């Protein structure tokens, strides 16, 4: 018995995880408990060093001192304010009038506004609620099919997930240990493809089933000429300013994603104030919602860290790796499996649960298979969009149910209406799998490395156990160059030795590399303003 347990700790622990989550107690606490129970068993069996609890403290501290996670409250707060600041109204009315004369015009308007809102904010709830409140009544009034109307609104709301600045991508970047900026750049192509797919579907519908997407009658299009222009401007100008404030500053390297989120909060507040929507109640509700989301997200992460610390200690990483690398079909087989797996999990699990519990299990395998983690992350982001859309638990549908009158729109219509859009999103995943260039095209090209100019600076090995340093792939020559910290990761094709070289022979719990960076190390960017400001007193006054 004991021998069986000793040899099968990882599978048993995984079963414990499934059990702990499925009973329905808040996941943060149940997975932490699973981690602790197996941790103590592991110590008894001599699989884990008894001082793993000390390491746990360190992990907890790494979570709360992670600057990147600050983006979660900021983007959430920004979303809750934008939801009700009147911006979506202006945009939808403007574009609705502009495209109204076309068949499916209101659908195009919803998709475009969904994309614009997506480029401003990072949370789905904000988009779906705002668009559902405004567009759904209009679409139903002018004879759009209920299924199509609810489907297009929910789907366009989820565009937010993929269009930068998306909170999902921030969290995935953190979990995969990649830069948020690169993740955002990688998501540009897929976002455009998705918008094109959605519009294409509306265009097909308007030919095949014109009765579902009628054009607005002329009397419904009250705005023409300058008033229409003014209406569109009134929606677009603040949007563009906000997009610049958040996304522009990230892409230009002016602000970290966290700071961009914070500036977005200020921008949203100013916009709400200009539109005379800024009330104390709105602000307080937004802050309280944000506080609750931040708390539960941090606790899931704390619980997940407790679990994964022990899971890695008992050899869970190797177990998962063994399972997944044995899949037929190599990289493509792995990707298809992962996508189906995540797609199914997303029926039951919240996005944050997938990101914090499941992704850390998959990421090392992906890296070992030589998969570009940016591509992998964007692909997973696209995949997890569907978790908002599939019946009956999709959040987007849930929000829509909350605002659509039950007398007019039965739940079955919302559920059926979502299906074509889920299929479109799955098509997007397939496109991303078989055409990786759609992601990598917008990434900065890796610099050509000339071996003569390489000046090797040895990074500090001690703390992060050599994670930052990789041996060059076997037999690939210098063309691909060694992967040094500070250089963008080059695509590696050969067998990667680093995993084998750094794998600890004993069962000591290792620290995932993404956390070590936050430990008290002085940050380069933080030091920036100091010299300027301090040099000032010495300069002669004019």
């Amino acid at each position, binding site marked *: 018995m004991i021998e069986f347990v000793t040899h099968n700790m990882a599978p048993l622990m995984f079963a414990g995880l499934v059990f702990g989550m499925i009973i*329905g107690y808040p996941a943060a606490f149940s997975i932490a408990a699973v981690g602790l129970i197996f941790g103590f068993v592991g110590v008894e069996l001599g699989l884990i060093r008894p001082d793993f609890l000390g390491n746990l403290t360190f992990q907890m501290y790494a979570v709360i001192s992670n600057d990147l996670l*600050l983006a979660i409250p900021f983007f959430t707060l920004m979303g809750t304010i934008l939801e009700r600041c009147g911006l979506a109204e202006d945009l939808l009315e403007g574009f609705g009038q502009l495209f109204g004369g076309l068949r499916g015009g209101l659908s195009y308007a919803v998709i475009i506004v969904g994309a614009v809102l997506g480029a401003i904010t990072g949370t789905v709830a904000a988009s779906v609620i705002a668009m559902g409140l405004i567009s759904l009544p209009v679409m139903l009034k002018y004879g759009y099919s209920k299924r199509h109307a609810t489907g297009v609104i929910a789907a366009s709301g989820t565009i937010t997930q993929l269009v930068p600045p998306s909170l999902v991508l921030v969290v995935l970047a953190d979990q995969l240990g990649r830069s948020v900026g690169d993740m955002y750049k990688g998501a540009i192509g897929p976002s455009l493809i998705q918008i094109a797919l959605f519009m294409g579907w509306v265009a097909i519908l308007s030919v095949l089933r014109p009765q579902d997407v009628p054009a607005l009658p002329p009397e419904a299009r009250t705005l023409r000429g300058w008033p229409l222009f003014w209406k569109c401007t009134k929606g677009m100008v603040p949007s563009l300013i906000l997009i610049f404030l958040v996304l522009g*500053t990230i892409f230009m390297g002016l602000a970290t994603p966290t700071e961009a989120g*914070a500036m977005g909060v200020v921008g949203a507040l100013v916009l709400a104030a200009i539109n005379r929507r800024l009330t104390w109640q709105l602000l307080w509700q937004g802050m309280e919602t944000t*506080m609750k989301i931040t708390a539960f997200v941090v606790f899931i992460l704390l619980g997940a860290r407790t679990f994964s610390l022990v899971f890695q200690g008992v050899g869970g990483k190797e177990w998962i790796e063994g399972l997944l690398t044995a899949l037929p079909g190599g990289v493509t087989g792995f990707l298809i499996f992962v996508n189906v797996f995540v797609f199914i999990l997303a029926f*039951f699990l919240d996005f*944050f649960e997938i990101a914090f519990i499941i992704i850390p299990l998959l990421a090392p395998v992906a890296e070992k298979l030589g998969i570009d983690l940016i591509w992998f992350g964007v692909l997973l982001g696209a995949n997890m969009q569907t978790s908002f859309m599939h019946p009956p638990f999709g959040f987007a549908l849930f929000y829509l149910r909350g605002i659509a009158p039950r007398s007019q729109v039965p739940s079955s219509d919302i559920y059926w209406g979502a299906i074509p859009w889920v299929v479109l999103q799955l098509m997007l995943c397939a496109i991303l799998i078989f055409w990786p260039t759609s992601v990598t095209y917008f990434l900065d090209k890796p610099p050509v490395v000339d071996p003569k100019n390489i000046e090797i600076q040895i990074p500090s090995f001690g703390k992060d156990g050599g994670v930052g340093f990789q041996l060059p792939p076997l037999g690939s020559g210098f063309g691909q160059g060694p992967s040094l910290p500070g250089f963008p990761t080059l695509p590696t094709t050969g067998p990667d030795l680093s995993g084998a070289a750094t794998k600890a022979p004993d069962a000591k719990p290792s620290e995932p590399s993404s956390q070590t960076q936050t430990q008290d190390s002085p*940050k380069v960017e933080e030091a920036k303003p100091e010299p300027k400001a301090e040099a*000032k007193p010495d300069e002669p006054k004019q």
Partner: protein
Amino acid sequence: MQALLGFSHAIDVFNRWISRVAVWLVLLAALLSAGNAFFRYGIVELIDLARKHDQLGALQAIIDGYGRNSNSFLEAQWYMFAFTALFGAAYTLKVNEHVRVDLLYGGVSERTRTWIDLFGGIFCLLPFCVVMVYVTWPWFVESWRINEMSTNAGGLPRWPVKLILPVGFGLVLLQGISEIIKCVAALTTDYVREHAYEKPLQ
């Protein structure tokens, strides 16, 4: 039972009060972070401005003050984040918004849910929180004893953010006890739990 429910109520009120601090910190952290970004990239222009106009002595003082303390401000950002999360978690537990997997939970009766919450509270939440308080407290004590400072120049002392870990888990522990009392009350008396399960917002 009444006495226990009274105790539970006292915990609820206390944690509600604490959570208000967390709510405020959300906004403060956002404003501070935006201010940090603004100062960092506007500082050259600000210095220029102060140099050209002598009467803007106050501005100069602000710039100098900021320059000396900029790392403190940057660190205050995530201190606030840590406080928000750990001060807010207990209240979030009270209003039943810690996210669950509702595959089973969503489909069973209120009584079964109460049993699940009781079981989870006793076997998951309490042990986790007790262990966490137990392991993080000495960490804080050590930090306090040596008066540990940030390794960044002009940074903040480290002990507050190390204190928040045991305190936050302690608050969640208290709230967990309060919830267990409510579960027992709901199972044995006609007490009705206030916060029925709903889908959490995301």
